[in-house]
């Protein structure tokens, strides 16, 4: 049944591409209907599978001569991420509701690319055949490029090209690793489950693991390969930023776990020597992740473009995901997957606030300029929304971020105490940049215009679509924050089912 998410999205994209241009409003209604039915399927599939292990979705021979099959299946991790994709898709369309108002918007094309991207993302999360996974992974790159290059803002051509090239470079590395694994395992199958049974020689895993992991981690925004993320986020239209931070970066983290770590668990083993205290790829990447957490947060602290603040915060939060994965403990991995979900929701909320609700009305994202606009009074909805989203994002208990980050930190504490400390510092800086952005954008008491007799500016009221999108995302975050078992009961068995070699936990 979950396969329907893929077909619905692509069919919707295809139909939208054929819509006449003048049907701006019809396009967005149609796109919303498609996204809603995708979400409905994702929810139904999630409920139906319950706490089961892997459920098979489809299995058809595709290119039999090469052992390539169209195989889809979903374990708990996939089902959670499919759910996230469904939510992000619906919210993204709700926050793009102004596209289609004007004739020049080309709404049908915008939503066609949007749904094609969503379809590719669903596909990656559900693929078991590596060829298929790679196909969907590549398919997701192209619509992203167009969404940014055509409907973007600040330096959109540069941002789009940089993002596409980073993504392609990452997928080239992944391709080399996949082909090598396929050849080494005797060239019979591309099935992930079957390949995972094969014991690749340790020396092989030692080079294949870092290659494939890095290839995917580029898309997850791992430091020092993260630079595409802030420029891409800033250049993208709001809905695309939401998808980019919300689900596309998750593709990278998902690939790290599902492909690199599952196929090559011994690539994480110690080298047998150590240099400056670093003795394995696992430590190398954990170090990168920890640096990313602090670095992303520190850079966010000094940005003046509101969207850059959120862009860099994504780098920081994705660092936590990667750190959680590398703990190789049950709790750390649970936390990492939950953090993927939580950050997907919260990044969506933050980008929506900044890019849609504030920017579309004030036409500036400069924190200095915003501080003079008394947005706290003029736009109370946006102000309170940012307070809530910011609190959730900095890890306030009660929201999804807290449960996820705590688990990652506990895992990290067991595996790499030093990095846990560094990550803790990052979280503190996270509080600081969120606070600073909030202060400057909404509650600045610097030259109060009202004191000079200038009236508080009037802005368009918040639309129903914006409210609906906010409600969807905020309620989800709150629900998961208050009752994390809803997802954790599904994630934990899937983490336990990962290859035994991976989960020996707390290896030095």
């Amino acid at each position, binding site marked *: 049944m979950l396969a329907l998410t893929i077909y619905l999205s692509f069919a919707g994209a295809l139909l939208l591409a054929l819509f006449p241009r003048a049907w701006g409003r019809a396009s967005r209604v149609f796109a919303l209907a498609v996204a809603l039915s995708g979400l409905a399927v994702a929810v139904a599939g999630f409920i139906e599978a319950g706490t089961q292990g892997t459920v098979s979705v489809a299995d058809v021979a595709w290119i039999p001569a090469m052992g390539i099959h169209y195989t889809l299946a979903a374990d708990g991790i996939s089902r959670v991420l499919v759910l996230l994709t469904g939510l992000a898709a619906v919210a993204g369309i709700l926050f793009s509701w102004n596209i289609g108002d004007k004739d020049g918007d080309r709404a049908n094309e915008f939503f066609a690319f949007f749904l094609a991207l969503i379809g590719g993302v669903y596909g990656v999360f559900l693929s078991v055949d590596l060829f298929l996974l790679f*196909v969907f992974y590549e398919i997701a790159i192209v619509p992203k490029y167009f969404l940014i290059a055509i409907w973007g803002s600040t330096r959109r051509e540069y941002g789009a090209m940089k993002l596409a090239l980073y993504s392609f470079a990452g997928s080239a590395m992944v391709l080399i690793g996949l082909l090598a694994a396929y050849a080494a395992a005797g060239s019979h199958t591309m099935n992930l489950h079957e390949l995972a049974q094969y014991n690749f020689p340790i020396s092989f895993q030692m080079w294949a693991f870092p290659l494939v992991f890095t290839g995917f981690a580029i898309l997850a925004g791992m430091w020092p390969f993260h630079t595409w993320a802030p420029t891409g986020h800033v250049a993208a239209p709001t809905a695309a930023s939401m998808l980019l931070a919300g689900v596309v970066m998750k593709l990278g983290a998902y690939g790290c776990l599902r492909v690199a770590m599952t196929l090559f668990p011994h690539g994480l083993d110690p080298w047998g020597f150590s240099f400056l205290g670093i003795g394995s790829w696992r430590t190398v990447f954990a170090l990168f992740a920890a640096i990313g957490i602090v670095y992303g947060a520190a850079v966010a602290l000094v940005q003046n473009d509101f969207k850059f603040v959120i862009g860099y915060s994504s780098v920081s939060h994705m660092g936590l995901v990667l750190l959680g994965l590398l703990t190789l403990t049950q709790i750390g991995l649970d936390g990492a997957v939950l953090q993927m979900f939580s950050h997907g929701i919260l990044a969506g909320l933050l980008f929506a606030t900044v890019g849609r609700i504030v920017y579309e009305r004030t036409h500036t994202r400069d924190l200095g300029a915003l501080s003079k606009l008394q947005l706290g009074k003029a736009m109370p909805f946006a102000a309170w929304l940012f307070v809530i989203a910011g609190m959730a994002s900095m890890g306030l208990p009660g929201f999804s971020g807290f449960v996820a980050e705590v688990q990652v930190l506990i895992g990290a504490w067991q595996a790499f105490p030093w990095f846990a400390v560094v990550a803790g510092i990052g979280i503190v800086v996270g509080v600081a940049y969120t606070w600073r952005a909030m202060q400057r954008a909404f509650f600045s008491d610097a030259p109060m215009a009202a004191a000079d007799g200038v009236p508080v500016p009037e802005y368009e009221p918040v639309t129903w679509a914006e409210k609906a999108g906010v409600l969807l995302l905020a309620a989800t975050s709150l629900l998961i924050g208050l009752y994390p078992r809803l997802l954790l009961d599904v994630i934990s068995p899937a983490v336990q089912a990962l290859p035994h070699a991976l989960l020996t936990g707390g290896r030095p």
Partner: protein
Amino acid sequence: MTPILTTLTAIPALAAVLALFAGNRTSVARTIAFVATLLSLALSVWIWFAIGADGSMKFVERADWVPSLGIEYHLGVDGLGALMLLLAAIVSLMAIAASRKVATQPGLYFALILLLESGLFGTFTALNFFHWFLFWELSLIPAFFLIKLWGAEGRGRAATQFFVYTMVGSVALLLAFLALFLATGSMDFEVLTRMAATGELASAIQAHLGPITLWLALAVLLGFAVKVPLMPFHTWLPATYSKAPTPVTMLLTGAMSKMGVYGLLRLALPIFGHELAQVRTPLLALATLTVVAGAWAAAVQKDLKRVFAYSSINHLGYCLLAIFAVVLPSSSSATSQLSQAAALDGVVLQMFNHGLTAAAIFWFLTLLEERSGGLLGIDDFGGLRKPAPVFCGLMGIALFSSLGLPGLNGFVSEFLIFRGVFPLSWVSAAVSVLGLLITAAVILTVIQRVFTGPLPEQWKSFPDMTAGERVALAPALVLMAVLGLAPQLALGTINATVMHLLAGWRL
């Protein structure tokens, strides 16, 4: 038994004579060319579906011709040949459809195109060197005149360069096959392949001519290396492709460049596979260079025709890479045989895919050229999506097929090539991945500079595609998607042929 293949080759040749009589009446000449090519296409579609899936030669025609010289009229097609016939017919049809404005002598123009098509059919069906070579040369002459008479400024030089380079290759081929005839008394591909497989051929050459087998192999290789081309024998190509009238470029890159790859598979590997295996490493290095440097050269071009000329070098470089990776001496393990099969499946499919995609891209360039009054610089345009969304959308499909986007045809064949080459020569495969990456950058740059960005004043009313143009291009684009989603449609027959070929070779 009806001589199907002879009929197929004769149709365009006869139509060429008819077209000559059309003189200055463009529509008459074009209609003749259309009807003849549609007939050929129908016939080659039928052949493709009729050859079955056992991979052996079908529709064989044999007749004595000059027995004293070992020359026999011997035709036949397997999956490889049939797919190339199909490609030649499709690309010819596209080229004729794209030739809407012929400056002078339309009768002669279409006659030459038909003659070229006939040469292609002959080359892809002949199984005896003598008349294979006849057709190989026959296709060269119309191409030369098409460039020389209807090309852009600087055409004379380009045509001469094209002719001389290809001729050097042809002479090398001819000399090598004359030596083979002296040593064995046969010019038949099947006979020579059998002799090569048993090792008889090498000893016959050794006995009659001395230790020159390797040199003969290199001479044959040179002939094809120029045609495909393999770097550093490519220097004729960019000038030729950019100076030729764009519909002719469609034929050059879509179909004629495949003659070289076809020759490698039909002549060089079966007969000299064992010798080529001795120089495998340098050949792989050159193929890798072709892939990477071809893509890089495309990245720095300013003229759209030159961009795609170099991009063609890059795309056919993957074929060369796979072919040279396959000539692995003493590969008996099941795994490496599987990889060889995958690589060659990829090559055959890539020949078709590149032909289709490159022809489509140059067709779009023709449309662009017609609208811009001849301008084709990458900096001459910008923002065309606004006035011409359909044009940009459809050309985008062709461009993404060239980029190798999954879901379209190019991805499958390139994936198969990499999947096959990787186990056989992982270094060259890993380096060649760079070519994929640079190609992606090239294509995205073209899209960015031409389709998006600010719209110059002069293109404010750039006309979008007409209904007729959309209908004309649709089949090619649909075929790209079909082959991308269901490659098995072609791969079944291709794989059978490749298995049959591999079984008959000694590498």
